[in-house]
C-alpha cells in the first residue's frame, strides 16, 4: 500500500485501517464496560485513599512496580465519576493496541491482524472484573506497548545501543512497573530474532537482568516468591490464585508478534485479509461478551452495586438488587437495612424469605467486603463499637485503605468523642480530591460537643451510646441493641431491629423478657410484636391486653385460627392463607415451624 500524508505526517493506509479498528473496538469496550463493570469501577475506587502529598506518593513509588501503582491510583481516584472508569480503561486499552501496532508493524503492515492487538487489553479487562486483580497490570500493559515501540525504534541504531538501551530500560521497567518487565524481556528476544536484528543473541541480556533482579528481590524478602516476581501474580492479591486463563493477556502479546511475522501482507490474498479483518473486528467483541458473561462473578457484582447504592443512600435500588439474591445473608442484611432506612422494616420483614436473626445482622465476617457492609449496618442500628471494629478491619484489609471506611471511622470517632483520632482521619481525607469537602464539613464537630449533639445524624448516634463499660458483641447483636435501648428507649431503629431479631429467632422466652421490660417504655409497639405476644400467650388474653395487644390483633388472631383450622379440615386453600396472612407473624410461625 502506498503512503498518504495526513496533516504533514506520513501515515500508511494500513495504519489508518488499524486505527479505525482500535477506535471501533475501543468504542465497543467503553459501552460494554460501562454496562457490565460500572459498579466494579466504583468499587475499585473504594479500595484506595489516594493522598495528594509527597510522603504518600513517596511510599507508593518506593516499592517494586511503584510507579505503576502511583499511576493507577491517580487514575482510579476519578472512577468515582460516572463513566470515568469505563472511559479511562477503554482509552488505556486503545492506546495499548495503538502502540503494539506501532511496534509490530515493523515486521509487517498486517493491517488485517490489527484487531488482534487489542487481545492483551481485552483479556486484562476480563480479569479486572475481579477486584483482586490490580489495575496497575492494565497500566503496565500500556507501558509495555510503549516500551516495545521504543525498542523498535532502537533497532535502527547500532546493536550496542539497542542492547544497552533495552537492558537499562528492562531494569527501569522492572523497578517502576514490576513483572511486566519479564514479558518485555521475552518480547524483545522474539522481536529481535524476527526482525533479524544484528547480534540478536545479545537480546537475552535484558531478560537475564530482569530475572536476576526478580531473584534478588525474592531472596531479599522484598517479594514473596518467583511467580510474584516474574508473572501476572505480581498484579493480584496474595491470596488470589490466577489460573491459566490469567496467562492469556501476556501470552497474546507474544502470539500476535509471531502472527505478524508469519502472516506478512503479501502472504494472503486481499479478500482473505479483508475477511480476517472483519471477522476479527466482529469476533473479538462477541468473544469478549461470551467470556465476560461466563467469567464475571455476578453475585460479587451485585454486592458492588449494593455497596454503591447504599453509600449514595439510594435505598430503592438497594432493595431492587438485594431482592434478587435472598439466599445470601449480606444481601438479606442490606434488604432489611434498606427497608429500615425507608421506615418499613417491621411492615415488610416477614414478607422476605428470612433465615433467622442473621438475616438482619450477620454475626461475624471473615472478609473485607462483608466487613465494609457490616460497618455501615452497625452504624445504622447504633452499635458504634462494632461499626468501628468492622470499619477498621476492612480499611486495613484493602491494601491502600477505603475512603468510605475512613468516613465511617471519622463519624464513629466523632460520635464517641475521640476527637484527636477523628481529626487524624479528617486530615487524611482533606488530602484527597473528592472527600476533602466532606472532611472539612466534619471538622466543625472536632472538640465541639454542642455542634455534634445538634447534628441530626451524629447527635442521635451519640444519644444511643450505652453509658457503661460493657463489651460489644459478647452475646451477639441482640444484646448490643438491648443495651442501646437501656440508654435510649426512644431509639426506634434499635428497637425495630431488636424486635425483628427476637421474632425471627422465634425466641419466645426472650420476647417475653423484652415485652415485660419495655412495654410502655418504647416509642413503638408494632403489630408484629403484638402478634408474637398472642402467640406465646394465647390462653391468657388479659396478659395480652395488659401488654399492649390491641383488640384488633386479638380478633384477627381468632380469625387466623379459624382459617387455619378450616385448612386443616380441607376447607380452605393454602394460597388464600398466604394471601390473607402472609405478612403476619402467625403465618411466619406456621410456615417455618416452632423452634
Amino acid at each position, binding site marked *: 500500500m502506498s503512503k498518504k500524508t495526513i496533516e504533514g505526517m506520513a501515515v500508511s493506509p494500513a495504519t489508518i485501517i488499524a486505527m479505525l479498528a482500535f477506535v471501533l473496538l475501543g468504542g465497543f469496550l467503553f459501552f460494554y464496560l460501562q454496562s457490565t463493570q460500572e459498579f466494579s469501577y466504583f468499587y475499585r475506587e473504594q479500595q484506595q485513599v489516594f493522598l495528594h502529598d509527597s510522603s504518600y506518593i513517596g511510599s507508593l513509588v518506593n516499592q517494586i512496580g511503584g510507579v505503576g501503582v502511583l499511576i493507577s491510583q491517580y487514575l482510579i481516584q476519578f472512577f468515582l465519576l460516572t463513566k470515568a472508569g469505563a472511559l479511562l480503561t477503554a482509552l488505556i486499552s486503545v492506546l495499548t493496541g495503538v502502540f503494539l501496532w506501532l511496534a509490530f508493524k515493523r515486521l509487517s503492515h498486517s493491517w488485517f491482524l490489527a484487531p488482534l492487538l487489542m487481545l492483551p487489553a481485552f483479556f486484562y479487562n476480563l480479569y479486572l472484573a475481579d477486584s483482586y486483580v490490580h489495575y496497575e497490570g492494565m497500566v503496565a500493559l500500556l507501558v509495555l506497548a510503549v516500551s516495545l515501540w521504543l525498542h523498535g525504534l532502537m533497532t535502527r541504531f547500532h546493536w550496542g545501543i539497542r542492547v544497552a538501551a533495552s537492558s537499562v530500560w528492562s531494569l527501569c521497567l522492572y523497578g517502576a512497573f514490576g513483572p511486566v518487565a519479564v514479558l518485555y524481556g521475552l518480547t524483545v528476544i522474539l522481536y529481535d530474532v524476527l526482525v533479524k536484528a544484528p547480534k540478536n543473541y545479545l537480546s537475552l541480556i535484558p531478560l537475564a537482568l530482569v530475572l536476576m533482579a526478580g531473584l534478588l528481590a525474592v531472596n531479599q524478602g522484598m517479594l514473596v516468591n518467583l511467580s510474584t516476581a516474574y508473572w501476572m501474580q505480581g498484579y493480584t492479591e496474595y491470596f488470589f490464585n490466577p489460573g491459566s486463563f490469567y496467562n492469556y493477556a501476556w501470552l497474546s502479546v507474544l502470539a500476535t508478534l509471531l502472527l505478524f511475522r508469519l502472516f506478512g501482507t503479501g502472504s494472503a490474498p486481499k479478500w482473505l485479509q479483508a475477511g480476517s479483518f472483519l471477522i476479527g473486528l466482529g469476533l473479538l467483541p462477541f468473544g469478549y461478551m461470551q467470556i465476560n458473561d461466563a467469567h464475571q462473578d455476578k453475585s460479587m457484582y451485585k454486592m458492588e452495586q449494593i455497596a454503591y447504592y447504599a453509600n449514595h443512600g439510594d435505598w430503592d435500588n438497594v432493595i431492587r438488587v438485594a431482592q434478587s439474591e435472598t439466599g445470601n445473608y449480606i444481601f438479606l442484611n442490606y434488604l432489611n437495612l434498606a427497608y429500615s432506612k425507608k421506615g418499613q422494616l417491621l411492615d415488610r420483614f416477614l414478607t422476605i424469605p428470612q433465615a433467622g436473626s442473621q438475616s438482619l445482622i450477620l454475626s461475624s465476617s471473615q472478609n473485607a467486603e462483608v466487613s465494609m457492609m457490616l460497618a455501615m449496618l452497625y452504624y445504622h442500628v447504633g452499635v458504634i463499637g462494632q461499626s468501628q471494629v468492622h470499619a477498621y478491619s476492612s480499611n486495613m484489609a484493602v491494601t491502600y485503605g477505603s475512603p468510605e471506611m475512613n468516613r465511617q471511622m471519622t463519624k464513629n470517632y466523632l460520635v464517641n468523642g475521640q476527637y484527636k483520632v477523628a481529626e487524624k482521619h479528617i486530615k487524611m481525607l482533606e488530602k484527597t480530591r473528592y472527600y476533602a469537602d466532606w472532611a472539612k464539613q466534619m471538622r466543625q464537630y472536632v472538640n465541639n460537643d454542642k455542634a455534634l449533639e445538634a447534628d441530626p445524624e451524629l447527635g442521635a448516634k451519640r444519644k444511643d451510646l450505652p453509658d457503661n*463499660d*460493657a463489651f*460489644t458483641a*459478647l452475646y451477639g447483636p441482640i444484646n448490643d441493641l438491648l443495651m442501646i435501648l437501656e440508654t435510649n428507649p426512644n431509639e426506634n431503629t434499635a428497637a425495630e431491629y431488636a424486635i425483628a431479631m427476637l421474632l425471627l429467632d422465634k425466641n419466645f422466652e426472650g420476647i417475653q423478657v423484652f415485652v415485660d421490660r419495655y412495654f410502655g417504655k418504647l416509642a413503638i409497639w408494632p403489630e408484629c410484636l403484638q402478634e408474637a405476644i398472642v402467640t406465646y400467650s394465647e390462653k391468657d388474653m388479659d396478659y395480652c391486653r395488659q401488654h399492649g395487644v390491641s383488640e384488633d390483633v386479638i380478633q384477627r388472631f381468632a380469625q387466623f385460627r379459624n382459617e387455619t383450622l378450616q385448612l386443616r379440615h380441607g376447607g380452605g386453600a393454602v394460597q388464600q392463607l398466604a394471601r390473607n396472612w402472609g405478612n403476619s407473624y402467625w403465618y411466619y410461625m406456621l410456615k417455618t415451624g416452632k423452634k
Partner: protein
Amino acid sequence: MKKITILTTTGLLLLAASCGKGDIQISKQLDKEVAITPDYKDVTIPQNIAPMNFQTSLENPTCVVIEGKGTQLTVHAKDGVFQIPESDWKKLLADNAGGDLKMTVCEEQGGNWQAYQPFTMHVAAEKADPYVAYRKLQSRYEQFYRLGIYQRNIETYEESPIYENKLTDYNCANCHSFPMQNPEKMQFHMRAKFAGTVLMRDGHVEKLNTKTDDTMSALVYPYWHPSEKYIAYSVNLTAQNFFHHQDNILEVYDNNSDVVIYDVEKHEVFANEAIKNDSVWESFPTFSPDGKSLYFLSAQGQKQMPQEYKSVKYSLCRVDFDPATRTIGTRIDTLYNADKEGKSVSFPRISPDGKLMVVGLQEFGNFSAWHKDCDMYAIRLDSGEMYPLTEANSSESDSYHSWSSNSRWMVFSSRRLDGLYTRLFMTYIDENGQAHKPFLLPQKNPVEFYDNLLEAYNVPEFIKGKVKLDKHEVASIMRESQGIDIRYKK
C-alpha cells in the same frame, strides 16, 4: 531579667547573623513562644539521634537558628518543615554533648525577621543504642493483614524490615526479643498460618513448635536470660473484647497463664510450682541482668472472664534462678502486692546495670497498651522504692518500654498523640533514676509522616546494631519445614 535575656538573645542572633551564607538579620525580638510540632521543646536527646526536624504553623517564611557551643546553624523551612542537614546536625551534637542547643524560630514579616522566644534541646553525653526494633501493625483488629517487624537506625531515618508477614501469607508475627540488646540473636513467633517460633542464633534459623501437652499454649511473652542459654516465656490463654465506646477501646485479658523457661540448647521447657501454679495466673517474665533472679507478674486466677476483668490485678514477684543447674527457687518474693496496693503491674523491665526496674502501673489487667491509665513507674531494686516517671508519662497509655545497653535511655510506645495510634518516644533516665521529657522518634517530615501512618508501633526494643536476618530463609523454613517439637521436662 527578662529584658536582659531578650537583649542578650537579640545580640547573639545579630552577631550570628553576620556570618555565613543564608543567615538572617533579626530586627525584632518577640516576647512570645511559637508552638512546634512535634513538641521538641526542652527535650533531652542522645548525641547520636537523627536530625530533630519539626514544623510550625506560621504562614510567613520562617527559619530556625540553632546555636550551640562554638557552632551555629540557620535552617530555612521548606513547606513549613525545618529539615536540618544531617552532617551539620551531627557536628552540632558532637560539639555539644552534655550541653544544650538553643533554637530560635524566626519569621519574616514585611521583609524583616522577627524572633520568637527560644527553646532548648538538651544533648546528653551518653549515646543511645543505634537501632530500635519494633513491630508495625494495625492498632486494633480481629484479623491480621499487613504487619512486620522493622528496625530503625535512630542516627538516620532509615527503616528496614527484619521480617514482613507478606512472605508468609499475612500471618501474625509477634513478640520479637533479643538477649541484652544483642542483634545477633533473636526470636519471634508466627501465629495462625505457618505457626511456630523463629529462633535465630549462631547464624542459623530454627523453627520451634512450642505447644506441649503440659503447657496450656504455645510460648508467648519472651525474655532472654543474659547467658543466652534460656528464654523465659509465659504461656497464656488470651482473649480480647471490644467495648461499646469506652476510651480504652478494647480489653486484652487472660483466661489462664503460667511462666516456663525454655532451654535453647536442649529444646525443652521447665518450670516449678512457683511460676506454674494452677490457682495463679503468672505472666510477663523478666530475668535480672545478673541472671540470678526471675521476675514475673502474678494474679489470683480462676476468675470468670471477661465478666470479672476489672478484678484481675497483677502483683510483681521474684524467684531465684540458678542457670548452672536450671534450678528455680521455691520462695516467692512479692515486690508489689496488688491486693494491698490496689493497682496492677505490667511489663517489668530491668535496666542493664541492674539498678532500676520500670513497670507499667494500671487499675487492672496486664495488657497496658489498651489502658489509658497505664503509667510507667520505676522501682529502685536496692531499696524497693517505687515512684512514677512523671516527666515521661502522659494521660494516654505509655507502655512497652525497653532499655538501652548503657541504662540511660528508654524507648517506649505511647498513644499520647491521638489517643489511638502508638508512637515511639525516647526518654533519658538520669543517674538519679529520673526520666526527662521524652521526644517522639524523629522523621524527615514528622508531621506528614505520622499524620498519614495508620499503623501503630509496638514492642520497641533497643538493639546495639543492625539485625541481619535472611527473610527469605525464615519464610522458607516456616513454610516448608516441620520444625523442632520442644518437650516439657517434668
